[in-house]
């Protein structure tokens, strides 16, 4: 066990996991918000575009997006981000993760909007608030609270899904490193548990945090 820790850069692999998680979380939040705005907009064509985005990316395996981003986009279509091969793979992994999870972020936000009973908007309008005021003071705060729980699940899923980046990043990433260690050193339950515990440490506090937050901030109805 000790020599495995010394020989392989496990902490480094988890650092890559954290980097990928943070970058793609930001990316998917931005992209997902845009798609969510499209999906709840009053314009039919924009709604269609949003729906198409969600349908396409929610139903495609992330593995396919990952492989395609490198083989298809980068090698064949020549869309490289960096000349350095591993940097290029790294940023394509971030893009694939962002694009994929944006569909789920969009659904989370939309489900938040959908928790608002119509009476809330009607009440806001009938006490004389303008459109902007009712959005700012009444609707968006409730929509945000309703979206916390699904957003938290999406974030946790994203952290776990960063392992799929091993397809393009290889041993720089936790899953790739586990594959290498298992092949070189033979199967050891201890190594597996070490990696597993790493993910439990990353995801469990987040899960508890989001559950608490959604409970504390839940809109009483």
């Amino acid at each position, binding site marked *: 066990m000790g020599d495995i820790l010394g020989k392989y850069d496990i902490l480094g692999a988890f650092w890559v996991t954290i980097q990928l998680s943070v970058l793609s979380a930001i990316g998917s939040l931005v992209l997902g918000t845009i798609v969510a705005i499209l999906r709840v907009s009053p314009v039919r064509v924009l709604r269609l575009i949003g729906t198409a985005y969600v349908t396409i990316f929610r139903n495609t395996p992330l593995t396919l997006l990952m*492989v395609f981003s490198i083989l298809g986009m980068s090698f064949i279509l020549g869309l490289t981000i960096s000349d350095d091969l591993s940097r290029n793979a790294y940023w394509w992994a971030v893009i694939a993760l962002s694009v994929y999870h944006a569909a789920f972020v969009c659904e989370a936000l939309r489900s938040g909007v959908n928790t608002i009973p119509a009476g809330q908007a009607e009440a806001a309008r009938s006490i004389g608030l303008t459109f902007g005021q009712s959005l700012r003071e009444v609707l968006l705060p409730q929509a945000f609270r309703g979206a916390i729980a699904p957003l938290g699940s999406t974030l946790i899923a994203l952290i776990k899904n960063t392992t799929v980046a091993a397809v393009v990043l290889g041993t720089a990433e936790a899953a790739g490193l586990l594959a290498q260690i298992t092949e070189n050193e033979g199967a050891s339950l201890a190594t597996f548990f070490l990696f597993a515990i790493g993910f439990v440490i990353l995801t469990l506090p987040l899960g508890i945090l989001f559950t608490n937050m959604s409970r504390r901030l839940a809109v009483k109805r």
Partner: protein
Amino acid sequence: MSAETVLFDAPGPRARRRHLVLTILGVVIALGVLWLVLTKMASANQLEGYMWSPFVTDPEVWTQYLLPGLWETLKAAVLSVIFAGIFGILFGMGRLSANRWIRWLSGGVVEFFRSVPVLLMMIFFFFGWFADAAWLPNEYAPLFGVVLALTLYNGSVIAELVRSGVHSLPKGQSEAGLSIGLSPGQTLRLIQLPQALTAMLPALVGQLVVVLKDTALGTIILYPELLTAAKTLGSAYANTVPAYLVVAVIFIVLNYTLTRVARFVESWLKRRGHTSGPLTTTEPNIVQGGAEPGEPAAAGERMVAAAAHARRARRDDEG
């Protein structure tokens, strides 16, 4: 109530003009993106006829590559769902057991397998155990790795669904069971579980989407599923990009159909009106917390709320 009517007034003349402008803008942007993709592909010589025609003219593309790949994908998915269902019901019952130790043990197992990435398990089971297991013929090793990893993960998700399904039944159900003299175990088995399982059916079908997508991870441990088929097809016909795009379309159509089936089952259950509880586990995507990777809502009460959202969400989904 659809989101649109919550957020917006009925458009007046000015708003209608603005909507028209936005409509045109949307169409222009969509066409622009399409044009950009096509020119990019054309300039990289990816629109040549010889790359795309094999999909129509050459039956071998389908019989040699794509259909066997699809078969392996479906095989792994169906096996995983069956085993995951068994695992999920057992551990879901374990989490509801009257015995504290059984409850804790199954809780620990379920929470552990839910928070470990599927790929990590797959890699460990395959490279660690199955790849050089003497008792296992070599060609079955990847299948075993894929199915075991997917079973443990999705089984844990289903266990959570079972638990929250039972929790969201009206209290009167278990009280009635206990008061006619059934033991707690009998009440769970005979009264609560059947109702919870029926209500769960749509979510189980939805889980199939998650499993189907996750079988694609099998390509990493050399399982010859659809994505692997795309890779070999791409190198055999020198049409990597078209091969991946076609496989993506197959996945999308398959999963979209399954989502539709899940919704149909749900509305059918509602029409039949046999469960006494709220149909808690509706809209698979939202029950899983909006994330494909099957993170179920942590607690039963959240699922009830989620079901309410889902019902509203669905109405304007077509939008």
